[in-house]
């Protein structure tokens, strides 16, 4: 199944989805220790004003352009999603879309699709991490 992950650039979630036999819907980007890009989640392609207009499918013209530009990238992937894993409150290094309002909208668009969604908190310790992996494993296996 096609599984959308939040944050959409999380390497760990991407790997887990692939490992358990599903297709992760994500645009990957190497996460570096130091932030040298202009944006914490610099887009993987050159976003043009035309791309930003495509975001109008997901949010109206009164919505800031940065949100519409992000939704122009993530929106089509959400459209394809058959399931989703949402990590709550991860640190930036785990993956991030940079804009909290976009985060809220992405999660809302996923919930609106009424597809299976697993919402997991970011683990605080090793035990929590194990629990998270086990929950994700169970969720993904249940999708088969």
């Amino acid at each position, binding site marked *: 199944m096609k599984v959308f992950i939040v944050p959409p650039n999380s390497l760990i979630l991407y790997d887990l989805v692939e490992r358990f036999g599903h297709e992760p819907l994500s645009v990957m980007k190497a996460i570096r220790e130091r932030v040298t890009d*202009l944006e914490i989640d610099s887009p993987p392609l050159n976003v043009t004003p035309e791309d930003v*207009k495509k975001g109008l499918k997901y949010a109206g013209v009164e*919505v800031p*352009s940065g949100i519409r530009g992000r939704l122009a990238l993530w929106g089509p992937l959400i459209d394809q999603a058959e399931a989703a894993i949402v990590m709550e409150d991860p640190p930036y290094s785990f993956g991030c879309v*940079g804009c909290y309002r976009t985060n809220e909208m992405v999660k809302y668009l996923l919930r609106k699709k009424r597809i299976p969604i697993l919402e997991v908190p970011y683990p605080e310790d090793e035990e929590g991490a194990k629990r998270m992996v086990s929950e994700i494993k169970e969720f993904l296996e249940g999708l088969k």
Partner: protein
Amino acid sequence: MIKIAQLSCGSEYSGVQGEIERAATAVGAKMVSPDIDLEEVDKSVEKFGFSPTSPQLRLLIARGVALTEGRYDADAVFITSCFRCAEGALVRNEIRRYIQNHSRMPVVTYSFTERTKAGQMLTRMEALVTIVSRKELLARERQVGLTLGIDSGSSTTKAMVMRDNEILGKYWLPTGEVLSSASEAVDHALSEAGVSLNEIEGIGVTGYGRYIIGKKMGAKLIQEELTVNSKGAVWLADRQKGEATIIDIGGMDNKAITVRDGIPDNFTMGGICAGASGRFLELVAKRLKIEITELGQLADKGNYRKVNMNSYCSIFGIQDLVTSLAEGMSVEDVASAACHSVAEQVFEQQLQEIDIRQPVIQVGGTSLISGMVTAMSDVLGQRPIVPAMSQYIGSVGAALLASGFIEGGR
């Protein structure tokens, strides 16, 4: 190469990052992005005191804090975020204040949409570069020698001849064809001064037509109007030392500039709609069938509160005017409302992006319209200083700064 630190949120996803970089390159600057450790972000946000939810805005704050602590080297700062983002607007303004309170770097703020193009940012970028690269020139307080200043504005062209800090001749006329308008203004100013062009030791040009005129006349100074007008305003108002705020409402755009010793350290520039400029007042005068020079006195006799007018869009503003006249409102009340509408827009859009410092100096062509000064007084709660010849700020500033190129050993 002048390094302009970019503190931003949403620029890449809005498709405008390339435009920002193009604007910087065009004025000989380079946008740089302060690199910081991810671990620093939360610490910097805590230190700053405002904790936004968006990670990109938290990063923006961390970058700003790093700049003020000298952990990253830059000459000027460009703070920008998406238009209509409330959180972005709050952070943009507060980090601008923080940087100004903790450093002497010139700062400019800007909110963009996906339609923002390099040209819209060019004058702002050029001003940042001028402030950094021409510090000594901008510190000049006295005009020396015989110089000519030309201000090729969107509505009017002004020329001024100065000798040893005295005005010898001046002239202005409505801008038509750029070169011929400049030529006519120069001829009249030279004639009034009683000198010939051959005697002029240095020419300075500012305003929209500065490049074409500057090249044609072999100007020693071709400089954007933000810095030039600031110098002209403090010279005319005799406020060269200390702090001041300059409100310059011109024919096509408006500017709010804070200065220290005559050198700008923060400025905003409007121009999205003619509704906040002298152009709207020209439309109003035309519709009222009066000369623009009569509008101010009429407005002073009217009561703007009687008329509902908001010229955020000049077309809708004129619609309001037509409706009000049809409802039987007096020409005086409508003229007053038109002036107030422009003043309120400048207050709401420009003056919210800078911190007003005393005294406030009102200049530009619209400062000759007394109703416009009254309207600004109302929204500011104080009467601004309007120096004599306040429409000549650009040409005075250009003549003053041009003398910096001829002085040599003097």
